């Protein structure tokens, strides 16, 4: 069954969508949309490093995304606003990444594949990495769900209940880095943040509780991944962007629903 590239692509898309859904909700609740974006952009540097040191792209991206995310978390609240820090770090990383890529002679890399993803080229090993990462993220978020939620509502309330909000933030940051690293093959650097934010945003008007919002986001993400792939196959469009387009249309529909209710 895994011999068909379409089946592999569908499974890869589903895996990323499932992991991105609950995480995307936290990104929306904590107003970290730009954080996901910046981490993703920085991963271009990871691609360059991976290629120059001959290691797997997944590992390179994971390392850079982790370094980026933890340094932003540590530096924030020390005289710089979050958006300033992210602007500095993300764009520096992408610039260093592009410069580093130019030093790689001999290797002709298809930068487009990393910017926009190449889901149709997902192999068995990629699939294992994607699902491994997705399950890890789901397990991590599921395990810390109550603590993460209370820290999001109020760090002080969490502290009074014996929860360390900084530790929860770190867990979220690590999960985000993992999702970015596994999603780069599927939707590419430029559109990872879309996969995090759009399904969660589309789920918001339809949900009364945080759990339901995460579940609905997962459904919307899954439908976007499979629907986008189908459409991309039929109309010969790039797969990653088509998935994001489907998600955006679903967001539009859910906004109409919420407007008509008001």
């Amino acid at each position: 069954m895994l011999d068909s590239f379409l089946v592999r692509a569908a499974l890869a898309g589903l895996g990323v969508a499932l992991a991105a859904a609950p995480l995307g909700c936290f990104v929306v609740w904590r107003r970290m949309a730009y954080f996901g974006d910046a981490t993703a952009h920085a991963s271009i540097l990871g691609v360059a490093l991976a290629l120059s040191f001959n290691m797997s792209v997944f590992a390179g991206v994971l390392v850079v995304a982790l370094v980026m995310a933890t340094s932003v978390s540590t530096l924030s609240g020390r005289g710089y606003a979050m958006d300033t820090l992210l602007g500095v770090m993300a764009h520096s990383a992408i610039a260093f990444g592009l410069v580093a890529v130019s030093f790689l002679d001999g290797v002709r890399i298809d930068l487009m594949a990393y910017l926009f993803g190449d889901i149709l080229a997902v192999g068995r090993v990629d699939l294992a990495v994607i699902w491994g990462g997705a399950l890890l993220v789901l397990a991590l978020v599921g395990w810390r769900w109550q603590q993460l939620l209370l820290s999001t509502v109020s760090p002080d309330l969490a502290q009074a209940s014996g929860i360390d909000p900084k530790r929860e933030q770190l867990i979220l940051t690590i999960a985000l880095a993992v999702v970015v690293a596994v999603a780069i093959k599927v939707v590419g650097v430029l559109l990872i943040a879309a996969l995090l934010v759009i399904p969660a945003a589309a789920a918001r008007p339809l949900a009364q509780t945080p759990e339901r919002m995460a579940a609905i986001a997962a459904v919307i993400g899954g439908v976007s991944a499979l629907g986008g792939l189908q459409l991309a196959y039929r109309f010969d469009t790039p797969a990653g962007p088509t998935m994001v387009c489907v998600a955006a249309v679903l967001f539009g529909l859910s906004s109409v629903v919420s407007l008509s209710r008001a």
Partner: protein
Amino acid sequence: MNALVDFNNVNLKYGAQKVLEDVNISIAPGEIVTIVGPNGSGKSSLLRALIGALKPASGQISRAMGLRIGYVPQKLHIDPTLPMTVKRFLSLPVKISDTDASEALRRAGVPDLGSRQMSNLSGGQFQRVLLARALLHKPQLLLLDEATQGLDQPGSAAFYHHIEKVRDELNCAVLMISHELHVVMSASDRVICLNGHVCCEGKPDVVASAPEYRALFGSGTGGALALYRHDHDHVHGHECDHDHSHEAAE
């Protein structure tokens, strides 16, 4: 009985700036302690240090083993992007049954709010829900940080009466920060006057007449207690006078 919380020569700093110096405070089980002090005097920092959100620069804060704290913060903004019913909120971080949630809301005087969204509550309802949550797991120490901000006078008076009732039921200690001296003092066993350090502490009437306290709040608030006594006779003549001088002292 042993103290629930003991501050031993605690110094608090934000960066290089000293917030609190050489604070020695201990809270005994079951007592109601009120902290008063002007803005920037370190009241909220003291509470944040107590819950562990702020590490002391020096000195020690010791808590009784397994101390259960119920915390009602000054204000809490729940982002409207986060869907959260009142019932769901009560289950953070420990899941509780629907029956327990309904019972807690009934006791807090807001029985019908269970399925409402937190972001749609009025200020008074929100505070009562926060209090209901803080009381869920039978705290030994209840912390209230300006819990009546945004409530009108009858509203906050009712809130404090409720706190007294809660204390009598649960026999928990209460540590609260408040601006509304005349309402709060009546219920307090002890008042601590804070201004970067502990200026004075003691029984409400002792503190109200202490020169350090007068220096901070002006003699106008000397009427605070008197005002409370008037309340029993339903004479509210000085109320306006007091509030103005109090605000001026802030």
